[in-house]
């Protein structure tokens, strides 16, 4: 019987567990809310994964894993722009840049990140196509699933708890007028600062997540931390959503814009 269904009934972690235990070989397709993912398994281990269009290439993957530097990548990219990942890998080994183990570890870091993203998908149809293998031009990995499954199970639990705290990503955030604690002592992470820079009653959390490229779990975690720190509060989004492309002023009317700047001037003068 074909392995297919909906993530609502059978979670991604359960799927991984099943494929791992049954040592299946083939492709798992998941149609998420906005993108389709494909994960290739070989005897229950992950060989290849992609979300959306596959624009990855080995050299970028190795830069992200800090195995080569951006200058080396640019040089190699130019020289081997028409080569497959396999050919690039062979060149890197033969020329002494990296050994085979390092190349596989870089690919595994990349695959792990994709799987971590898929853990946050709670909606979407899936199907498993038996026998499908890694594309010829790609290097097939053999990523063990045991640790990832344990990590995913923890994340699922965390996600369920965060969903209770922040039930909807369609809510907006505003800075609290009088934070309940001495915010001078608040230390924020880079992700938290990214979110803070988009806090505005007109931006939904979902929009902020898109602008900051955070997935559902990550944005919920950040928002929860900011709520706990007393920096922001949840509100209903007000008015039409503003563009996150960075408009300086909400109004387009020149007279209103000037009036707004004049109000700022009056306020600064009065300080």
């Amino acid at each position, binding site marked *: 019987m074909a392995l297919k269904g909906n993530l609502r009934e059978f979670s991604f972690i359960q799927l991984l567990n099943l494929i791992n235990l049954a040592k299946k070989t083939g492709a798992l397709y998941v149609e998420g809310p906005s993108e389709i993912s494909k994960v290739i398994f070989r005897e229950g281990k992950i060989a290849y994964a992609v979300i959306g269009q596959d624009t990855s290439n080995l050299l970028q993957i190795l830069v992200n894993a800090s195995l080569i530097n951006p200058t080396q990548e640019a040089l190699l990219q130019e020289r081997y722009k028409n080569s497959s990942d396999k050919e690039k890998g062979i060149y890197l080994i033969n020329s002494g840049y990296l050994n085979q183990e390092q190349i596989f570890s870089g690919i595994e870091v990349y695959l792990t990140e994709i799987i971590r993203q898929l853990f946050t998908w709670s909606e979407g149809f899936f199907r498993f196509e038996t026998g499908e293998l890694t594309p010829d031009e790609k290097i097939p990995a053999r990523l063990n699933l045991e640790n990832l499954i344990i990590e995913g199970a923890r994340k699922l639990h965390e996600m369920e708890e965060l969903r209770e705290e922040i039930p909807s990503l369609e809510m907006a955030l505003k800075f609290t007028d009088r934070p309940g604690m001495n915010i001078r002592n608040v230390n924020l992470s880079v992700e938290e600062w990214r979110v803070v820079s988009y806090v505005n009653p007109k931006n939904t959390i979902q929009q902020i997540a898109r602008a900051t490229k955070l997935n559902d779990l990550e944005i919920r975690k950040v928002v929860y931390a900011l709520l706990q720190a007393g920096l922001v509060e949840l509100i209903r989004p007000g008015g039409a959503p503003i563009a996150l492309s960075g408009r300086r002023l909400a109004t387009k009317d020149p007279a209103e814009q000037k009036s*707004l700047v004049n*109000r700022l001037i009056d306020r600064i003068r009065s*300080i």
Partner: protein
Amino acid sequence: MQTQTVKIVVTGPFNAGKTELIRSVSEIDVVSTEKKITSEAEKIKNSTTVAMDFGRITVDDDLVLFLFGTPGQKRFDFMWEILSEGMLGFIVMIDSTRPETFREARSILETFRAYAPTPYIVAANKQDCQDAWEVEDIRVALRLDPSIKLLPCIAKKKSSVKTILLELLYGILEEMDSGKS
């Protein structure tokens, strides 16, 4: 009515006085992330801004001005583009007593101009220090066109910071009048 927020970014090299400027006029305790400095070259003070500073000035019920300070150290410059998004204008702080940072200040200025063609002002900070360079000497050193506003500044003095903010806002008004915005 929903509150509208506008943003001014305060940038400049490490230890130029960005945090101090925001602290002088913000009505809330400035939120800043301070971290022990690891680079020997930057051990002028014990800690520096990791991500950014954040201050606020409420105009009225429906208008709030946010002041965002950028990280002082080069290794956090990936935050600059994020911070520059949607800014009304920006202030480049210069440490008038450290000419070795002028080249970096110039580079930061150029980077921010590339991110967003918004009005800006250059503030020559620490003018109360004995070894501060004259403002016009700084202009020459930074190769600033005479049309670019370069003002003396003492970031710990509220009156001086007010002047800087007002000059920037006047520049924004001028730009609106000229129809460039």
